[in-house]
């Protein structure tokens, strides 16, 4: 197998939650020893509920945040300690698409300038060349030259998300980190945007890290899926295996909780008790032990490691490792 495009090695990240004058400061444990790799050309999706650390992970991947410990490798280089200046040529190869299509476009800039800005920063194209490229990019995402002169407020949510994708594509990136790119869109528009993501991947040989909370969207786009809970990666495997044979009790509950648009389909649903524990006061043992219906003594004591239980199927659960 070829070497992975990007790799995370045992990443830990905490944020300061509150400072106390005496005694210990309190920290939010956002990521607790996450390791994963993404192969060139594949789509890895990360799913999990709010507060599980999935967005933090996306931000550490392209070094918008620095990890407390652990390493980030990109194209066989350790970029963990790169300075912002060193990062600039790397960022050209990894672009982001954000969740909120309203917040991520500058309202004072014309669309042609928004899409052309990465070209201005990363290349030395002339103004004319840039404009030509921008039009080509807009056409790839289903917009046209007429739209180039508009401002962001003139566009609908779906169109804005296309503009965001066009901007990310402008510098020919290898990796696109998409953080909840379709969750703010209506279903009929969501389907349009997902199809664009899929088409572009084939056309430009892109690698995606797709962060989402929606398991039904993720199935359409992914090759592999990782499930996160409270800053831990609890299960990671191919899409087929995850949906057919989810091993972690949390993944099972998550899958059964997704409402299915078919009234004849009634099934036994696993209703989890309680809420996600606070990432400030983490449970001592397995992060899921407080809500897990199979939890035994061991689960409350020690944190399970992410182990390969089947080829290509890793789970962090005491029940599966013993």
């Amino acid at each position, binding site marked *: 197998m070829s070497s992975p495009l990007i790799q995370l090695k045992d990443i830990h990240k905490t944020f300061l939650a509150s400072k106390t004058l005496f005694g210990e400061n309190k920290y939010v444990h956002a990521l607790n020893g996450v390791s994963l790799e993404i192969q060139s050309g594949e789509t890895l999706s990360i799913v999990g509920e709010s507060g599980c650390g999935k967005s933090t992970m996306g931000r550490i991947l392209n070094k918008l945040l620095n990890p407390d410990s652990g390493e980030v490798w990109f194209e066989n280089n350790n970029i963990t300690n790169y300075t912002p200046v060193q990062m600039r040529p790397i960022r050209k190869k990894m672009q982001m698409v954000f969740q909120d299509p309203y917040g991520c476009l500058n309202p004072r800039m014309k669309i042609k300038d928004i899409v052309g800005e990465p070209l201005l920063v990363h290349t030395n194209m002339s103004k004319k060349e840039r404009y030509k490229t921008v039009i080509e990019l807009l056409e790839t995402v289903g917009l046209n030259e007429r739209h180039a002169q508009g401002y962001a407020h003139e566009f609908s949510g779906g169109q804005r998300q296309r503009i965001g994708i066009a901007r990310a594509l402008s510098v020919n990136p290898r990796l696109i980190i998409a953080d909840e790119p379709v969750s703010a869109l209506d279903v009929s528009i969501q*389907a349009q945007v997902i199809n664009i993501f899929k088409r572009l991947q084939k056309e430009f040989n892109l690698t995606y890290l797709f962060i989402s909370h929606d398991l039904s*969207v993720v199935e359409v786009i992914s090759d592999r899926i990782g499930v996160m809970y409270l800053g831990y990666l609890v299960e990671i495997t191919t899409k087929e295996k995850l949906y057919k044979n989810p091993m972690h009790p949390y993944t099972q509950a998550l899958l059964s909780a997704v409402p299915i648009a078919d009234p004849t389909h009634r099934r036994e649903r696993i209703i989890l008790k309680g*809420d996600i524990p606070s990432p400030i006061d983490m449970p001592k043992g397995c992060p899921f032990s407080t809500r897990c219906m199979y939890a035994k003594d061991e689960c409350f004591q020690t944190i399970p490691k992410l182990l390969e239980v089947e080829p290509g199927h890793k789970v962090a659960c005491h029940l599966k490792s013993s």
Partner: protein
Amino acid sequence: MSEKLLEVKNLRTEFHTDKGKLVAVNDVSFYVGKEEIVGLVGESGSGKSVTSLSVLRLLPEQGNISAGEVLLEGKDLLKMNKKDIRNIRGGDIAMIFQDPMSSLNPVLRVGEQIMECTKLHLKYNNSQARKHAIDMIKRVGIPVPEDVMNRYPHQLSGGMSQRIMIAMAMSCNPKVLIADEPTTALDVTIQAQVMELMLELKEKNKIGILLITHDLGVVAEMCNRVMVMYCGRIVEMADVFSLFKNPLHPYTKGLIASVPKIGKNADVLPYIAGRVPDLSQMPKGCKFAPRCSEAMEKCYKEEPKLTNIDGNRQCRCHLIRERSEINE
């Protein structure tokens, strides 16, 4: 047919803006029966929230209900004076909003907010109200209700706040509950908890629920009947099984097809081309015609009427009329 608790007849809501008069809800009629969940689905801008706000006359200043009736057990809410409608709000008809965080008052303890309802509507004294509030919090599945009573909204998680909202809405024994996207802001595992709770309350208290959502999965799992809205109009109404098995309106078909389904593993998702038209630039004729793959010449000229089909469902489409005429 079940008893009609809430009936809306030919509702028309307009907004006065700089762009002129915009019709957000046009000729909408429906009813909610006892022990029934009626779903109202549509994309953003289809007028589903305005419909629900019109029922309780909670529209912003620019909004104006220009025609129609809203009947609660035969009494017209639109003809009531301000005092009477205030007694209905939170009393006979309760409402849950999408964002539980911003619908709770941040400077009041949760308990006080629940107690406020029963003190106002049921004239409870302090100790009665407190006892009732604790009881309600327990019923929505929150452990240690006495402790939660003394907390402020920011100390609760999203799922907890939504439960508190439900407890508050249910505390005066409403006959009808209007839930506007009650689970949209919640995570799936928490959504499952809240859906379960609402189904349970429906059975126990025999209430009628108007559930407004954009999520067809939620509709399929919870509703008895469904209305699909597009551009301020109801385009299709049917019981939940017929709607998903045999959608008639091209918009409903497109909507159902574009939902990704787990296990189906589709390579390309079907979608509806184009976008919802702006309220100020409504197309002539059928409002869906510009996006419809089956549109005929007639669709661009003449708006179809909502037609009864098989007695128990309705659809607003020229194609359906043509077909049924051929059958005749």
